[in-house]
């Protein structure tokens, strides 16, 4: 069985970042286009059924073209406690 894929990246991530950083990513035009699609994706979801299928999942172009220019100079273990001490933020569905 192929792995389940989520089509929600444009509706959630691209639409979210477009609210505060429309130029985020190297290609503003692509982000803007995908943001348009993102609103569609949300209305598709709300409109109904299973047709949401694979729409909108193929946005890896945006992601791939957008590597961070932040240099990660920190060691992963630096300044951050072990997992057992990390508290879990609230979520409506966590058991």
């Amino acid at each position: 069985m192929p792995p389940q894929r989520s089509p929600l990246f444009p509706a959630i991530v691209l639409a979210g970042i477009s609210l505060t950083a429309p130029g985020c990513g190297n290609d503003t035009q692509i982000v803007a286009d995908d943001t348009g699609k993102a609103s569609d994706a949300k209305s598709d979801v709300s409109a109904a059924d299973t047709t949401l299928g694979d729409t909108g999942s193929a946005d890896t172009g945006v992601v791939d073209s957008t590597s961070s220019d932040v240099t990660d100079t920190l060691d992963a273990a630096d300044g951050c406690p072990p997992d057992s001490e990390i508290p879990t933020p609230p979520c409506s569905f966590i058991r």
Partner: protein
Amino acid sequence: MKLPDDPTIAALDEETRRAIAAHWLHRASAELGVAVAFEALRPRLVGVGAAPPVLALADKAMVDERRHGALCVQLAARYLDTDVATPAPRDGALPDFGTGAEELEVALLVLGTCCINESIASEWIRSCFRIATAPTALAANRAHLQDEIDHARLGWAHLASPAISDALRRRLRPWVPRLLDVNVAQWMKPDPHLPREGIAAHGHLSVEENEAAIDAAVRDVVMPGLKLVGLA
């Protein structure tokens, strides 16, 4: 919310109806707890200079989560075919990561609550919606999904905004994999109220479907999002 007529509920056996009602009552308490959490987060977002669209989404989230709590109570009542009392909110206190730096604390709260948990919640509800056939389950999951998408957007909007400086982003990065691990582990726990095989018609995933939905959310939404905002 006006729920559609649903003859499929009366056709369920008593045990299944009780199980589904227990799930919704538990969810009601959790949703009300998240409303409390968003209320506590809102002034802290203001304090760190969050952008107006982020604050607007926080305002919406508080109202949404209260409405979700009420909807979950309504669903429990429908499956039990009797009135039920609204449960107390689950503890909605925001965790303290112990960094001593308010900007980092708020960024971690937003990362965990919105970017990770609300993004996973959105894909998880989409999966519930896809397997459901009962009119009540379709209506309830559709209503939840519309809002959870906005709660997830809040997180990505904040982390992409000028309120997150490059220096703060660097301090945030080492936390990301662990915050993700800790939250995903919570999501992977089977729902204690429901059978392992789920109750598909009523929108309840099997243990395997639950895991697949979470995997898809992390791989296709959260990880690419973290890359886009310079956190992975």
